[in-house]
């Protein structure tokens, strides 16, 4: 994983638009959040291999970054992205890691199911 380079991400978002894609979108505080600190409210969600299609997709911010994907009838949004997998040419694998390296958010797009 490398720190996000916005030009590279924007190019990839453009190359994936207007086609059916499988998405993995996730946000998590971790299952131990409340165990480690009772003031924390544990929450998490993920959706894997839902089929989506967007016409406009862009990345913005100065890091951590935001990505918005405009679909025919709705939106996909993720905030807090910091890293991407530079070795995966086919799929767009992005994640947001906190200061201790823990994953907080993930947004992945692929033409094949995950």
């Amino acid at each position, binding site marked *: *994983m490398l720190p996000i380079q916005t030009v590279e991400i924007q190019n990839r978002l453009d190359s994936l638009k207007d086609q059916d894609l499988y998405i*993995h979108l*996730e946000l*998590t505080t*971790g*299952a*131990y959040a409340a*165990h480690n600190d009772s003031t924390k409210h544990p929450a*998490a969600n*993920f959706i894997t291999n839902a089929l989506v299609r967007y016409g406009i997709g862009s990345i913005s911010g100065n890091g951590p970054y935001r990505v918005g994907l405009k679909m025919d009838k709705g939106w996909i949004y993720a905030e807090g992205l910091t*890293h991407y*997998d530079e070795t*995966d040419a086919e*799929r767009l*694998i992005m*994640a947001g*890691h906190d200061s*201790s*390296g*823990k*994953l*907080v958010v*993930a947004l*992945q797009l692929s033409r094949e199911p*995950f």
Partner: protein
Amino acid sequence: MEYQRILVVLPHPDDECFGISGTLAKHIAAGTQVTYACLTLGERARNMGNPPFANRITLPQIRRGELEQSCQAIGIQDLRLMGFHDKTLEFEDQDLLDLKIGELLAELDPSLVITFFPGFAVHPDHDATGAAVVRTIGKLQPAARPPVHCLAFSHNHRESIGEPDVFVDVSGFLKQKIASILSHRSQFYVPQLFEKNPHKNREVQERFGTERFWTYKFA
């Protein structure tokens, strides 16, 4: 007390390292056969190394490698990857979970089973795993049930289930235990363990030298 065969049922790679790796290494040194059924690959873990070297795609295979390394460090002879998915066990088909655990029990006829204490193990997968194990063993005739030693660490556990009744001195097996913990390099960073000869460090000995279990009492 020596056991001929121990069956360990836990949901995540790394669940073995802090709580039972020393106990397993000790029994293995005395001749016990150990089967470790790991239900998932921990593919939804948040720890990815620091700086992160894993992602949601690569994590399952990285964790599989770490688990194999940990098992090797402990001396575990038989690792079974059960193919369930991290974070989903509480929603999984209970009959399927029980069937898989029942098959292991029938095949291995273990003299001891180790798992999480259902309701007192913090992570929903831990509780669901322990629940499936005691549910499946509970269906056996009382005389056919192997003893079940459970791990518990939720904040409320002592009020409900009291003190542990099994204490294992693993001070002679800290090398194996530390190697098991260090295997899971995407998941843990314990600075003390990177010092020279960590198994001789007094603090490490106090923190890791005893493992504790609760024997499950079937109704």
